[in-house]
């Protein structure tokens, strides 16, 4: 617990990544999609920052943009994303980015099968990455690949390094991905829904693995997830995204104990809990997320928010409601109102007007 306490309240002094005013839009046949709309966040050394949101919230696009994976003729990217030494990722040339990718910023994906090449042995794939960034012999790179596989808990690593991706189970493939990501000791590991495709038992193994590696190597983790359970388990800080914007940012305890944005309440409310008495009906958030082609003016969440009022047509700022607080949210409600309104039937959630319920 003690290392978690350190993150409490402490401002990030030693940051490895600073993202400022990041905007990503895509021109499509049906118009411009503003996928990421002015997103800023920082990642401190050795911390786990979770970006939480549902499909279409822009969480994955943000992460992929850091790796230069959203660059395309129809994409417009602006803003800044800088590493500790000032390396700018948004405007970096493809060649510079190639040097950063894999060695200083590494990424693991939701579906390890499509992220690995099916026609190469996994050991060779890891060795190839090592040799892309460091001048070492093939034999040395292979030996390191075996060490890495062993490190991430693959039994009989020497033998298994000669196997192909399809010969591994989903959980083992994700371990291979983690081994590959860590092969060049990166400063940041971006994990995009790393356990979503896995069974719960395997998920808990993989999360433990990531946590062990973080403590051992001091790598900062940017965890993209939709699962608040996973967040509670491993994150130190949380950024909640909705429809391309950051709607709340705080320490991990605050998101569960003192959430300030109505969307966060709805998200917390709709998670079925096995540790509580089961309610007759699951609390929900009414409606569905807005189209990013034509997002609502003002607050993006107002179309689904039962607490909306006239003010919500004006765009809210992401701001701290208490002085010197690192807890920021994007909502016009006052702190007192928030604390009163978020409790529904004794738990945090959103009330559903009976006549309006879309069940």
């Amino acid at each position, binding site marked *: 617990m003690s290392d978690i306490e350190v993150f409490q309240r402490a401002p990030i002094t030693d940051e490895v990544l600073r993202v400022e005013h990041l905007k990503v839009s895509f021109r499509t046949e049906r118009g411009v999609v503003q996928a990421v709309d002015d997103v800023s966040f920082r990642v401190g050394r050795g911390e786990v920052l979770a970006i939480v949101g549902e499909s279409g919230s822009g969480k994955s696009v943000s992460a992929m943009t850091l790796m230069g994976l959203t660059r395309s003729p129809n994409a417009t990217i602006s803003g800044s994303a800088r590493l500790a030494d000032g390396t700018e990722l948004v405007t970096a040339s493809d060649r510079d980015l190639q040097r950063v990718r894999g060695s200083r910023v590494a990424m693991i994906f939701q579906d390890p099968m499509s992220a690995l090449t099916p026609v190469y042995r996994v050991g060779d794939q890891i060795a190839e990455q090592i040799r892309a960034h460091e001048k070492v012999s093939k034999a040395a790179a292979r030996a390191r690949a075996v060490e890495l596989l062993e490190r991430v808990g693959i039994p009989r690593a020497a033998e298994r390094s000669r196997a192909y991706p399809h010969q591994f189970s989903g959980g083992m493939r994700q371990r291979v991905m983690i081994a590959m990501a860590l092969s060049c000791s990166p400063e940041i590991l971006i994990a995009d829904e790393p356990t979503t495709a896995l069974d719960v038992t395997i998920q808990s193994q993989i999360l433990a693995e990531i946590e062990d590696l973080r403590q051992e190597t001091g790598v900062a983790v940017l965890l993209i997830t939709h699962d608040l359970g996973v967040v*509670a388990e491993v994150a130190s800080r949380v950024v909640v995204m909705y429809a391309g914007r950051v709607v709340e940012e705080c320490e991990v305890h605050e998101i569960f104990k003192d959430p300030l944005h109505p969307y966060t309440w709805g998200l917390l409310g709709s998670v079925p809990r096995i540790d509580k008495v089961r309610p007759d009906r699951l609390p929900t958030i009414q409606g569905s997320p807005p189209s990013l082609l034509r997002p609502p003016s003002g607050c993006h969440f107002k179309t689904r928010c039962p607490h909306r009022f006239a003010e919500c047509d004006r765009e809210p700022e992401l701001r701290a409601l208490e002085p010197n607080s690192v807890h920021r949210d994007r909502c016009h409600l006052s702190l007192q109102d928030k604390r009163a309104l978020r409790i529904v039937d004794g738990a945090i959630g959103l009330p559903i007007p009976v006549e309006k319920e879309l069940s």
Partner: protein
Amino acid sequence: MTDVVTSPAGTKAAAALLEIDHLMVMFPVRAGTWGAVVGHVHAVDDVTLTLAEGETLGLVGESGCGKTTLARTLVRLTEPTGGTIRFRGEDLTAKRNKDLRSFRRYVQMVFQDPQASLNPRKRISQIVGAGIRLRGTSKGMKARREVEELLARVGLDPDHAQRYPHEFSGGQRQRIGIARALAADPKLVILDEPVSALDVSIQAQIVNLLDDLQDEFGLSYVFVAHDLSVVRHVSDRIAVMYLGKIVELSSSDELYAQPMHPYTASLLDAIPIPDPDRRRDRRRLVGELPSATNPPPGCRFHTRCPWATDLCTEVEPPLAEFANGHEVACHHPLNVGRTQLSEAIRSESSPRSSGAELTLSPAEAHRVEIDEAQGKDETP
């Protein structure tokens, strides 16, 4: 609905809508140039279950445990290798072609991936209308009106009936899948991971919808899920599967409060709870699911079980049935006292290959450790 669980075995069979009896589904494994059969995948291995009218049975397990194969076999999308499935007393396994078609009216299925299970070239009105035609009672304008009513009932705009599946979001597509299943006016709906592909806030909407529809149309559900937290909300009873076998069957509330099978306990333990104060050192399940082609002898879970003894490696445990209907296939069940153990009987649902007599004993040596762990997991 809970009285179904507690009633004696005889009356349970009388009220049963669906009776699955020693069901086997095996897939041949072929190898070599000539495709010689070198083994079988025991996807569903001697499963016996009943489902009462109006009941929801949850079917839970990790990928590869056979839950989806079992669900698909219930609508004969997969052919059983052995055993019988009876729907209202009629043997489905014997049905062919035309007979089978008339039965499908009564048993419908909703699939996990609404994108893949809706024909992209058909309009919603055609997709949902197919079920109404199958029923054969309405035509023309009347059928059209029924489609619109159904769409409205599942929370879609009836004006969108002429649209194509790609014009809808994931949650809306799943609503279409549900409307299609309901169009045939079924008695039983097999839900194969209906909310796994959806966002949490949408998941909750769909679960509530399914709840409402069940009351309104008098439906029975078989709800397949790998997610123990969602399945708890919808199920009256839950069956936990491991490598093709039922390892535990119990009323939903009891399963969560007192899991008896070590596998169920570790599944529950693996669920991350959205509360950072409850970050805990879990008893993490080691290893992965063994091969279903060559399953371990004795109890199939013994390779990963922290409480396994020599007995577990030799004798397959039969299902022990306790007074309240809770059944567990384990030689050393958790959360149960000596008196209860001595009163348990060998369930008639036990697989034929399992031990002829119950050999129950608490995992004595580990008892203290188990109690500690359970105490820690006590809900606040």
